[in-house]
């Protein structure tokens, strides 16, 4: 038996729609109406990132979600900038790809997040613990000022390179890759 996790956001969903949201109490428990619920989705943001979906049986039996430490691995990355651009900040955006669609993973009461987790990184390297699985990474430094007399330098991802040299293709501006174990990626940024 592990440590109960308090404050984990739990979504009760169909395959494509969030029906209700709640959070776990001090004992790691939650309760929600079960009618029509097909999945219970737990969204973890600390001390690790990840999203776990569990199918709900017809009898609406209790659902238990446990995370083994072995499921949590370290994602490290290094940003490479054009030589004439000093590092200032970059917005890093990570989204897990799981068996329920993004409309569930990214759900908010008033819309969808751009990404599951967004942080402004102020050093050219970062580390974060994530659950094993497929993740999408987006990154950029974007200041919205297209009509400025002196336009800011904006950056987007030119290429993401995995530790083994593989470079996943961009899909809708994001880069999906499998995280099976500790991994380091290189994110090359270019002016946009």
């Amino acid at each position, binding site marked *: 038996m*592990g440590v109960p996790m308090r404050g984990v956001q739990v979504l009760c969903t169909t395959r494509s729609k969030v029906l209700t949201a709640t959070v776990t109490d001090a004992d790691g428990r939650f309760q929600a109406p079960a009618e029509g619920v097909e999945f219970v989705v737990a969204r973890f943001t600390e001390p690790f990132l990840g999203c776990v979906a569990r199918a709900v049986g017809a009898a609406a039996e209790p659902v*238990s979600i*446990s995370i083994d430490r072995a499921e949590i691995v370290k994602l490290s990355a290094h940003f490479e900038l054009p030589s004439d651009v000093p590092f200032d900040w970059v917005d890093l955006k990570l989204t897990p790809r799981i068996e329920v669609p993004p*409309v569930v993973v990214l759900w908010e009461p*008033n819309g969808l997040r751009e990404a599951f987790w967004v942080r402004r990184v102020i050093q050219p390297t970062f580390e*974060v613990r994530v659950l094993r699985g497929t993740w999408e990474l987006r990154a950029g430094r974007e200041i919205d*000022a297209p009509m400025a*007399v002196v336009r800011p330098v904006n950056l987007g991802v030119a290429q993401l390179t995995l530790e083994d040299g593989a470079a996943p293709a961009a899909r809708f501006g994001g880069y999906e890759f499998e995280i099976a174990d500790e991994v380091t990626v290189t994110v090359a940024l270019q002016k946009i």
Partner: protein
Amino acid sequence: MPAQQEPQQEAPVDKNPEDGLAAPAADLVTISRGQIAEALRSPMASASAANALGASLGLTPLQIAALVAGRSDLKLTQTQYENLRRSVTELYQSRGTEAQDGGSTCGSSGSPTTTTGSKVAPVTTTNSTVTETTAGTTTHTEAVGSGTVTVRTDIKGTFGGSADHLFAFSYKGTDSADNHWLQFIHREIVGIHADGSAHPQVGSITTSGGSYQLTPGGTATTNGVPGQANYNTDTASSTDPFYEAGFINNRTADSTTMYDQPSAAVSRVQAAFAAGATRVISRAHFDTYLITVDHVVYHVQLTMEYDFTSATANPAPVSTMGAAGAATALPATIAAKFHAQFPAFAFIK
């Protein structure tokens, strides 16, 4: 229904200040070393003032020295940033009182040459940033004060860069030196999924003048309703709220014209497609006010919309003019955001 985790021995990664991770994107404001250097060129700047402001932020003398020497940027939380702005304003006001027979000087770098505590100073210089190659369509003309406001859309112009769908607000009158454009923006990114459901994107937009939240609640055909957090003063300056302070504009002896064409926020649009949208609508809404000396005299609304029918589409923006007419004050929601961002301009109600 328990959610459990195996015991963890190590500190959470995203709380470790050494790992390169900072607060959520919306919470940090960066003041670059260039901006710091510019501020220190101000006649109001002094070593004692820098030390006082640095100390108010909890900085050490070494850190203050690094900032003053231009060796470091300054990153602040929104709260620290607002406190700093307030402190700077108070400092300027106290020094202005000493130096200028009771007038208080506010930072105003772009259009007005000097702004006093209760009015915006006239602009007597001329400026021609934009060369129009096509004058576009005049959608509205109205007499305002002793001059005329004109609204045009789909202007083609060059300004270092170029754009084919600029809109322009002009004021022409003998008192144009006393008139300035104050614009507010809010944005929507709405993903439309295969079942027809609308999914507005939430999150923050970073601009040269501050950050703001995307407006929720919109659909393919209806606009979301903005609150204070969704508005942003549309300026390239952190000290001068007027559009002309750093965005493209032309000013002659008897007119002032501002030009704009918002981006489509393509990276956000792409993220909406990645989230399952089959169509994405990116809207930028503008509430723009003509300020004469110290008060609002006119208001015009305009929305520019990009309708992406696929992730590879490159749609032309469509401008739609909303309400326009005489005004005497900013609406409460906009005023609250404006005064929070630019407390030195609280005299503009």
